């Protein structure tokens, strides 16, 4: 019943109840006074009436005496007395003036008789007065009294007129007396009625007041209970602070802080507040401001809970007399905020700073450096072989690898350095107060930390890194520029395969062009601007085509046909070499498969595809090549991969892995050639360990054989070296018949160059293969001709 009622805490229910009590008292008092007044006034009237009625008795007796006096000849005026009697009784019945009696009293105002008994008695009295007067007159006149008709129902049997007059006089007197008695009795009754009514009124008033008071108390209790339960059941913590510390703590303290209320009273609360927040809380509790404060309190289990409190200064409030804190537990919100901040500035995978935070830190470091002139260095690290792990073992393993690497880098670097993951497999390091030479030492430590393979998912993953370092000499600088320079140095390191490079201005010039190309290359890849050309490789002994080298051409809408030498470095630096290499590989495989299905391929035919150092070092080449072969349906022995010498001999785990992958492919039947052989600095002895079928003698030697004895000697040595290792040698860049003649003599097994054919589109190559034409190498070398004409017949 009660629950259904709407609760209005501020409806002034109490005030209304008090007002109702006062109104009740006033109403009952007014009623009581009115009753008393009215009764008193009626009593006053009745006194007059009683007096008049009593006077009638005297007058009736006087009338009888006066009649007897007159009869005896004495002087009296019974007529006047009779008139007064009659007038008085009339006045008593109908209201009006009762005449005065000489020497006795004045004229008297009589109210009209209302009481029925009194009125009936007065009317009887009036009749008796008439009978009395008639009888008195008969006595005086000597007339017969028997003839008088008595109106008041007297039944008088005495014949004597005087006796008769006495009886009627006595009756009149008695009736008057009784009338007076009736009035007096009724007055008594009125007074006693008044007393009863007053008692009843008093009781009723008291009852109503008590009920109202009860309602007031119940309402107040309910209101108090409501607020108490609001305060106590609220999850908010209500604290009241006075001069002596905490005076009140609501029950929610048990759920919020797992502490008892009494533990917080007095100085108890301040003990649990965090040192850093204590001053704020003390100030709020003593001054009542600011309106909102945020502070930490330790709960029973030693955890810091973040409380947000609304501060209300009620020190001037008589009921409270203190500062009230309404505190909410906002720990979860604070944690979420921290988490969001963490997410915004940290890499969720490794927990390291992200690119945004890294840039910010670099900015700050530069600002400091501008003041202090302190040196600093920025280092960018790119993992080699990470992509392969991701592709072959999945992203989960890749992620774990990144975490492991992050950990190793973390322990290799100083805690004052900012280590960040900038994205993908790229890390950044900000080294404040670090010179170039110290940075190089740290880079060495980082590389060393990776020398131990990472064991993940049952694999020993060998991972390498390329590190670019930029040193800032102190003073003003820009973070963008610093990071870009470190990036350039990193690509240079990747290119050189040396693991670590320090940025210098020449690099900037070299890569400035490269970086401009990057964007166009990206667009070119998307816009299908690349094409694969094929250049035949020829067995000079019989002139037959034994293979083709797949070469990529870029038909740029802005730059026209761009030579590979111009865009391949940029593609490698930007990482676009990956997709570009894949494109060439896929095209070459499907083209060769198409030739195979057309049965136009000569025996022992091999399509050679170039692999860049970066493609190798990033790992996963084995999977990719196998995938391309499978997609095209091409047997592995029809494919050859040309690898640069530097890529092949690269040191470190990435190099090892690349060699292992090539070995696997070699075992599949894929041929491997070493491109540009002789330009590197590797020990020839390495060749023995490599899975190689062919070495390509660099065009710089081939083109020098005619004029330079050294080039001729090198070419001869390379060829004999190849043969000694059971490999074949191919001379590339053969442009003239004399060169052809010489390289043949120097022992090259195969030749390739403009002398036979320039790289040509697939369609032209198909035509050449369909024609089954070989090249008349004999006539060429004999005539030293400017060009070799294809000869008919297979």
């Amino acid at each position, binding site marked *: 019943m009660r629950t259904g009622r709407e609760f209005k805490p501020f409806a002034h229910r109490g005030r209304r109840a008090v007002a109702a009590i006062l109104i009740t008292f006033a109403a009952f008092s007014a009623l009581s006074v009115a009753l008393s007044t009215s009764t008193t006034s009626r009593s006053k009237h009745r006194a007059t009436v009683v007096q008049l009625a009593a006077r009638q008795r005297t007058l009736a007796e006087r009338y009888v005496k006066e009649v007897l006096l007159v009869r005896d000849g004495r002087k009296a005026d019974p007529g006047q007395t009779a008139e007064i009697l009659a007038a008085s009784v009339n006045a008593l019945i109908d209201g009006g003036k009762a005449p005065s009696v000489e020497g006795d009293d004045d004229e008297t105002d009589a109210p009209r008789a209302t009481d029925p008994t009194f009125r009936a008695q007065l009317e*009887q009295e009036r009749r008796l007065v008439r009978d009395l007067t008639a009888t008195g007159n008969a006595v005086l006149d000597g007339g017969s009294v028997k003839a008088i008709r008595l109106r008041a129902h007297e039944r008088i049997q005495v014949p004597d007129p005087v006796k008769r007059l006495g009886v009627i006089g006595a009756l009149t007197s008695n009736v008057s007396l009784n009338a007076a008695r009736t009035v007096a009795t009724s007055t008594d009754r009125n007074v006693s009625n008044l007393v009863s009514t007053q008692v009843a009124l008093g009781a009723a008033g008291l009852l109503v007041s008590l009920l109202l008071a009860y309602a007031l108390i119940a309402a107040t209790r309910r209101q108090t209970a409501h607020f108490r339960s609001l305060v106590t059941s609220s999850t908010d913590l209500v604290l009241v602070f006075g001069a002596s510390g905490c005076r009140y703590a609501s029950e929610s303290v048990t759920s919020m802080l797992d502490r008892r209320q009494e533990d917080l009273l007095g100085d108890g609360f301040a003990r649990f507040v965090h040192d850093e927040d204590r001053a704020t809380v003390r100030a709020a509790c003593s001054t009542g401001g600011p309106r909102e404060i945020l502070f930490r309190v330790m709960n029973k289990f030693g955890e810091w809970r973040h409380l947000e409190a609304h501060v209300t200064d009620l020190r001037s409030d008589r009921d409270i007399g203190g500062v009230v804190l309404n505190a909410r537990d906002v720990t979860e919100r604070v944690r979420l905020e921290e988490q969001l901040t963490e997410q915004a500035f940290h890499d969720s995978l490794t927990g390291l700073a992200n690119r945004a935070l890294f840039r910010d830190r670099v900015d700050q470091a530069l600002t400091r450096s501008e003041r202090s002139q302190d040196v600093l260095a920025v280092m960018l690290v790119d993992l080699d072989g990470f992509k392969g792990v991701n592709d072959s073992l999945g992203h989960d393993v890749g992620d774990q690898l990144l975490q492991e690497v992050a950990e190793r880098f973390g322990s290799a670097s100083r805690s004052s350095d900012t280590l960040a993951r900038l994205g993908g497999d790229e890390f950044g390091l900000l080294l404040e107060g670090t010179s170039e030479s110290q940075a190089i030492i740290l880079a060495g430590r980082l590389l060393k930390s990776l020398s131990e393979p990472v064991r993940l998912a049952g694999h020993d993953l060998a991972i390498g890194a390329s590190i670019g370092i930029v040193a800032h000499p102190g003073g003003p600088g820009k973070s963008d520029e610093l990071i870009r320079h470190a990036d350039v140095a990193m690509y240079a390191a990747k290119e050189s395969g040396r693991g670590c490079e320090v940025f210098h201005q020449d690099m900037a010039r070299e890569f400035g062009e490269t970086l401009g190309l990057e964007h166009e290359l990206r667009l070119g890849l998307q816009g299908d601007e690349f094409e694969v050309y094929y250049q035949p490789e020829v067995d000079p002994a019989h002139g037959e085509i034994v293979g083709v080298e797949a070469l990529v051409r870029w038909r740029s809408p802005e730059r026209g046909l761009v030579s590979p030498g111009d865009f391949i470095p940029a593609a490698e630096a930007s990482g676009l070499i990956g997709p570009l290499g894949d494109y060439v590989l896929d095209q070459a495989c499907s083209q060769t498969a198409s030739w195979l299905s057309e049965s136009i391929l000569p025996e022992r035919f091999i399509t050679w595809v170039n692999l860049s150092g970066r493609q190798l070092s990033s790992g996963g080449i084995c999977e990719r090549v196998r995938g391309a072969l499978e997609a095209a349906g091409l047997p592995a022995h029809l494919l050859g991969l040309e690898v640069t010498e530097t890529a092949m001999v690269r040191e470190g785990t990435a190099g090892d892995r690349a060699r292992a992958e090539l070995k696997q492919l070699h075992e599949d039947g894929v041929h491997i050639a070493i491109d540009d052989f002789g330009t590197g600095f590797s020990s020839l002895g390495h060749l023995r360990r490599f899975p190689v079928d062919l070495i390509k003698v660099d065009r710089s030697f081939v083109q020098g054989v005619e004029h330079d004895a050294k080039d001729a000697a090198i070419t001869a040595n390379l060829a004999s070296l190849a043969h000694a290792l059971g490999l074949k040698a191919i001379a590339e860049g053969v442009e003239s018949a004399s060169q052809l003649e010489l390289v043949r003599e120097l022992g090259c097994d195969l030749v390739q160059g403009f002398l036979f054919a320039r790289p040509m589109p697939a369609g032209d190559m198909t035509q050449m293969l369909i024609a089954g034409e070989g090249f008349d190498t004999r006539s060429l070398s004999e005539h030293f001709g400017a060009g070799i004409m294809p000869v008919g017949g297979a």
Partner: protein
Amino acid sequence: MRGALHRFLLPAILGLVVLTAAGCSAGASTKPASRTVRVTEKDFRILAPKRVPSGDVTFSVRNKGPEHHELILVRERDRRLPLRGDDLTVDEDGLGSAVVATLEPESPGVHEVKAHLRPGRYWLICNMAGHYMGGMRTQMVVE
């Protein structure tokens, strides 16, 4: 503690009300029935049965007014009742034990008076000033 006031207040109020009500209804008991003789008085006459059996009798006296009247029951000794010196009222003192029952003067209404009646003749009179001589007397035989 806080509830004590209201816990005792309401029962106290209710108790007060109940007691008041009980007080009002008390005393409304009825008397055991006995032989009743109806007597009517009015100005200035008394009407009563001529014969009444002896024994305990309750006189139910109806005063029809308008005057106040009394009723005095007197066992007859002589033919006439003695009068006082005023020649108006019966000398009640002179009657002594002959006065069997007296109903004091009453305003109009019904009033009762009890008497033990032995066989004989009785006067029923109103002895207020002038009433006896004015006609308020009658006789009754108790058998």
